[in-house]
């Protein structure tokens, strides 16, 4: 596989340096994106997002748990991501890989840092709070799982119902209203191949990239999370360039999830 990867890397790099992309997009265009909400009945909220050939599902489950001892009046938010082996020849069964952990943490950070969910409202009674589980399930991998997962999580949260509570217990299959959301967040990932910046890298481009940066943007164009990956570097100019582009792209993505 190593030789093949190296060849792909060379091809992608020479394409990009000639001002082209593998799939004829321009440098700051997303692939076709589709968002579908409410695809599962048993979870409180769910969404399936396709970004090009990448397919990511997000499901929200809400349970009851004990609060953290230092935050007794706040609910709990936990995010996990699974790179299912059926999604790609690159994924193996077993405990979560570094890549899966990074993906979960980026999605989590976006949701948490933007303060989308008012955790104080997840309080039920003494020592009892709601736990919101955000599960990201990657089903098909063709690059830029971060943006796909971020969109899926946001879309799923938007259609999340609150379980009905009776005598301090959840009544299975019955719901009362929706999960209150204060804001929303979109994530935008840029790859750097050679000296060129590209939004929404496909898998081959990810193999050819030297660095990657993801921006989480929330209401009023506030940046709420940033993650850089890779041995390559970004200049300050480049970072401000991608911030401006992310602000523009946010509108596109926000429309897609709001109208789904």
């Amino acid at each position, binding site marked *: 596989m190593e030789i093949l990867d190296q060849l792909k890397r060379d091809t992608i790099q020479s394409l990009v340096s000639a001002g082209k992309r593998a799939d004829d997009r321009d440098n700051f265009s997303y692939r076709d994106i*589709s968002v*579908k909400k409410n*695809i*599962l*009945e*048993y*979870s409180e909220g*769910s969404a*399936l997002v*396709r970004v*090009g*050939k990448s*397919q990511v*599902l997000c*499901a*929200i*489950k809400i*349970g009851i748990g004990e609060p953290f001892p230092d935050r007794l009046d706040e609910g709990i938010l936990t995010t*996990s991501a*699974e790179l*299912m*082996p*059926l*999604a*790609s*020849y690159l994924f193996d*069964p077993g*405990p979560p890989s570094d890549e899966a952990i990074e993906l979960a943490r980026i999605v989590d950070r976006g949701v948490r840092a933007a303060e989308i969910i008012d955790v104080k409202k997840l309080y039920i009674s003494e020592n009892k709070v709601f*736990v919101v*589980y955000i*599960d990201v*399930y990657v*089903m*098909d*991998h*063709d690059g830029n799982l971060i943006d796909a997962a971020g969109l899926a999580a946001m879309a799923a949260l938007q259609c999340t119902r609150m379980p009905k509570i009776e005598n301090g217990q959840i009544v*299975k*299959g019955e719901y009362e209203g929706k999960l209150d959301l204060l804001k929303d967040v979109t994530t935008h990932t840029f790859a750097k191949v050679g000296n060129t910046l590209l939004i929404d890298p496909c898998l081959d481009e990810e193999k050819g990239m030297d660095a990657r940066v993801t921006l989480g943007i929330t209401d009023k164009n506030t940046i709420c999370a940033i993650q850089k990956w890779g041995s390559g570097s970004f200049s300050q100019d480049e970072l401000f360039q991608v911030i401006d582009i992310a602000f523009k792209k946010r509108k596109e993505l926000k429309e897609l999830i709001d109208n789904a």
Partner: protein
Amino acid sequence: MEEVELFKNGKRYDGRTVEELRHVKIKAHVLNDADGSAYLEWGNNKIIVGVYGPKECIPRHLASPYGAVVKCIYNMSPFSSLGEHGRSGPSRRSRELSMVIGQVFENVIEREKFPKAAIEIFVDVLQGDGGTRCAAVTAASVALADAGIPMKDMVSAVAVGKVKDTVVIDLDYVEDSQGQADCAIAFANRNKEVLLLQMEGEMSKEDMQKAFELASIAQERLHQLQVEALKEVYMHINEGDAFVDI
């Protein structure tokens, strides 16, 4: 859980007759990277299967010079039930199901054509409502065919069981957990050989006969749906990316 009247006036609690299957929908070729894939909805069950191979068998010591090794992983997603959020990763139950589902396909795949290779079947239950192992076998068979892996036969499976002293087909979660017996059966379509059989509960010999009778009829129907799903993909030239249509 609330007790429900499972069988009343010839109808089951959800209005089905004894021999009536839940609604089944199969779509082949839903993933882009996997060599073969299928998505199946069976009542409230939602299952996705991806197949890879034949490919190099890793670790190598598992490879066989006589034929391909079939590896199957059945996995329940942590959000698959109406109840609490579960744990991800293998459980004792999913390990057992992975094994018996894998064995079904060891039987039908022409393994001798691919010595030292591996064929991987990944089954993911996105939503489970009783009868997931049968749904998994039915979907995996379509995914393997979609991958172009030579097989002697297609396989489909269905559960039969007993509620309120009545033998019924295709138990859902409520019937399964409150009924008297549950029996999963997988048939090879060509010769009706039984490739998977797991029973739990109490049934008489007569009950079993009735159960096999019901299952054979359902199997024909499921096979037809599998073939239709494959034709849908391969009778026309499909442009554009594959996608999961939940």
